[in-house]
């Protein structure tokens, strides 16, 4: 008797979202990156087609977080404060497929950089690398609306991934994305309904579905990852079952989440049994990222070069010769 793998067939399919724009499409990127398009659960190659592989982005900063682990400083040294140079290093040395520019320094309590300064940094990064760009903001509504409006304007046509809007603050940024042709991250706090509601609100204002990426707001290993995992899985199952308002590709932040946890940063002298800080942070990030990948993430923003390397290798291994885009 031969064993047959039971197969689920799905009526729905995840929306394909393309990031970046080449000269032909009105931008200056050397190529675009497309995510989504799956017709089955992650890595269930036996159940349906996965038209695009998950991709790994790395992040640069307008202002490096004071609490970032030393391990990161060892890798990046002084370029940590030079977003353009750091982006270049991420792409050429560590194989980042996209670059996220985190504009935390525009937060009124964290430096209060102006929208113009922020736009200048984004321009710099666009100039230093040719991969598509993600622009990552914060939760100070008034300020981030100003900043993102400006960023959208100066990056017109580049189809950046503007990261993010939330239910209580989406109109201004979404309108700017429509006006200047960018793609948008819809972020909601680990809840299937709230995620769906925001997507409905966006499409109700005629935001094009093929330009929405969801961020289910994940936690890192040891900080609610299990819960995150099951919410993402449910979002994906509903999306595949035909719920169009949940059928968007998902972005996650295992880098940011893991870099700040105590376990990744604690001094080796304080916790000798935890092993070297040099690699501990990478392990933490790998465990987080891998779980998120298996629960449905298509776009991972990561920090630790070793973790990036490991996750990229794993994706390659799992996909093998499938869909080599």
């Amino acid at each position, binding site marked *: 008797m031969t064993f047959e793998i039971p197969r689920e067939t799905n009526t729905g399919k995840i929306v394909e979202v393309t990031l970046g724009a080449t000269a032909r499409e009105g931008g200056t990127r050397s190529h675009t990156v497309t995510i989504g398009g799956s017709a089955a659960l992650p890595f269930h190659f036996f159940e349906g087609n996965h038209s695009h592989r998950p991709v790994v982005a790395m992040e640069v900063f307008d202002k490096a977080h004071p609490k970032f682990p030393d391990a990161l400083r060892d890798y990046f040294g002084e370029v940590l404060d030079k977003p353009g140079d750091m982006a270049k290093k991420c792409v050429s040395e560590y194989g980042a497929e996209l670059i996220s520019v985190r504009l935390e320094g525009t937060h009124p309590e964290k430096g209060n950089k102006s929208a113009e300064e922020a736009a200048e940094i984004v321009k710099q990064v666009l100039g230093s690398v040719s991969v598509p760009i993600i622009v990552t903001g914060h939760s100070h509504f008034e300020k981030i609306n100003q900043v993102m409006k400006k960023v959208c304007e100066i990056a017109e046509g580049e189809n950046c991934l503007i990261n993010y809007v939330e239910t209580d603050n989406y109109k201004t940024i979404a309108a700017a994305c429509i006006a200047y042709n960018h793609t948008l991250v819809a972020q909601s706090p680990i809840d299937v*309904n709230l995620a769906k509601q925001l997507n*409905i609100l966006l499409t*109700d204002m005629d935001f094009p579905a093929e330009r929405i990426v969801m961020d289910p707001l994940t936690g890192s290993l040891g900080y609610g990852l299990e819960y995150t995992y099951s919410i993402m899985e449910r979002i994906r199952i509903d999306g595949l079952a035909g719920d169009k308002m949940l059928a968007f590709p998902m972005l996650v932040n295992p880098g940011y989440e893991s870099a700040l946890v105590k376990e990744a940063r604690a001094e080796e002298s304080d916790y000798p049994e935890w092993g070297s800080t040099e690699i501990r942070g990478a392990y933490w990030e790998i465990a987080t990222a891998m779980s998120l990948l298996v629960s449905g993430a298509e776009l991972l923003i990561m920090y630790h070069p070793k973790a990036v390397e490991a996750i990229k290798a794993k994706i390659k291994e799992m996909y093998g010769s499938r869909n080599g885009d």
Partner: protein
Amino acid sequence: MKKKHKVTILPFDTIIEVQPRTNLLDAINAANLPLTAVCGGEGTCGECVVQITSGRYHSKPSAALSDEIVSEGYALACQTFVEDDLTVVLPRFEELSIRSVVDHEFFDERRDLISGIYEVDPPVQKIDLQVEAPSLEDNYSDLKRIERALGKSWPSGNISCEYSVLKKMAYAVRKDHGKISIVLARLGGSRFIIDIFPQSEKKSVCGLACDIGTSTVALHLVDLSTGKFLGTASSYNQQMKCGEDIISRINYSQKPGRLEELHDLIIGTINLLIKKASESAGVPPADIYYAAISGNTTMIHLFLNLNPNYIREEPYVPTINQPPVVRSQDLGLDLNPEARVSCTPAVGSYVGGDITSGLLCTPILLDTEKVFLFLDAGTNGELVVGNKEWLMTCACSAGPAFEGSGIKCGMPASEGAIETIKIDDKGRFGYEVINNAKPKGLCGSGLVDLLAELFVHGFVDRNGKFIERTARNKIVQTENGEGLLIVEGPKSFWGNDIVITEKDIANLIRTKGAIYSACSMLLKSAGLKFHEIDSVYIAGGFGQHLDIENSVRIGLLPDIERAKFSYLGNSSLLGAYLMLLTDKNHSIVNKIADQTTYIELNTEPRYMNEFTGALFLPHTEMDLFPSVKKVFDRIR
């Protein structure tokens, strides 16, 4: 030392003495009376408004009150200083002229369509007797002779007599040559003579049906010989100042002295209403011999001065579900001191006697084939599904929004409340106000209409946020952020704009979401779909009318055939009324309480998911509301 001033605060009849030039808000607070000061005495919120009916005072001018209102003696307590003996009314606690939705006619028409029994045979009633005069041959005691006389028309059994009655007996029996009236209480299997008087005194024997809601308290004064209403009164529950929902009340009660305080506040609230109702009916409170009280389990615990703490803590166990009959003097109620007070039995900690009594007004126990849904959209939302053969129930914390609390422009369904609202094609508001008065705010039914109209006319999005494009020229600034203007200041009673803010709308959406999702969970637990329900009975403090179509549009009620819905208003009060009329209803509610299965939503992980799904207009899953979808697609 300067002479102190006497400040009399109505409707509480509290008198305090204060130094000249004392701030009135401080004085009222010192008297421990429930006046809220949202802005902390800044003179901007208008919450501390009082009416001063006599005496001199000095008030700083404030934008929160119009000149017209000021000329009628209204003032902000926080901006007012006492310069004389004053009489001050707290308008928020004056009687609420809430009319009940149904009355005798309702029962006359539906005698056979309700689970309760509608007949006048109260467990406490006046019985006229002819007591034979004693003689040397018949030298039985007065009490024995009364028992003998009673035995003729009322089959004998143990009869006890209260001590206070014995003291009046010799006089009463002899005054009219043996023609006496006794007040007999037949409750819980025993019989008590609780009063006696000569027939010539022609006293009426009255009863009180009372609903203790978390937010409002309402009662009917009833003639126990005919069952007719003699008077009705309602007001806010004075406990409101100690927290809006039952959980915060329970928390409040946990400090020393606080349980007593809450108990005193509810007794005080009821006594004030008794005074109103008995004055308007011309019946002295001493003629009230029986009270049937219904309320949720926490309210009943506080009413009986029992510690409610264990209702809140897992495994959520109350002290008692089926309270015994108590005497009014033990509680401090202003009734006849020997009056008996009985409370309707509860199913559990979160499904109280307000529900079991409400069910008496529905046909839920008459049928074994049909399935009924009963929902009480009170501050503590409670639901029951089933029929004669099975009943399931659950509760949810809905909040007091539909009773007019926690919403800036909200108010109970009393005079001045906007009870219906329509928006026309040009975006203009049309509304009806209770008693055709100048509008003061919106009651529950008005708020349901408002939200539905704002939604279907595209003023708010599905998340309840204003849509710039359409709402722009109605937006005004308030201290709670942007608000949508409903009635302009000069047209309103208080002279202030009546406005709804996004925060208010979020509050309404939370409330309707809690109720809908609890319904949906309850039905799922019973393995039913909404369309399989044959009738839905809705209770709550919305006001006289509840627009079913609009309730569906906002996702409060499920999108099923409209003819299946009936709105009952305060069914807890009506149930208490039935309990007053005959004790047979007591056995019915006891049976309901015993045979109902309680589903605990707090421990049900799926509830949270149902709830967040319902926090949208009408719901995250528009497919659950096909008729609303049609309307929505058309307007878009």
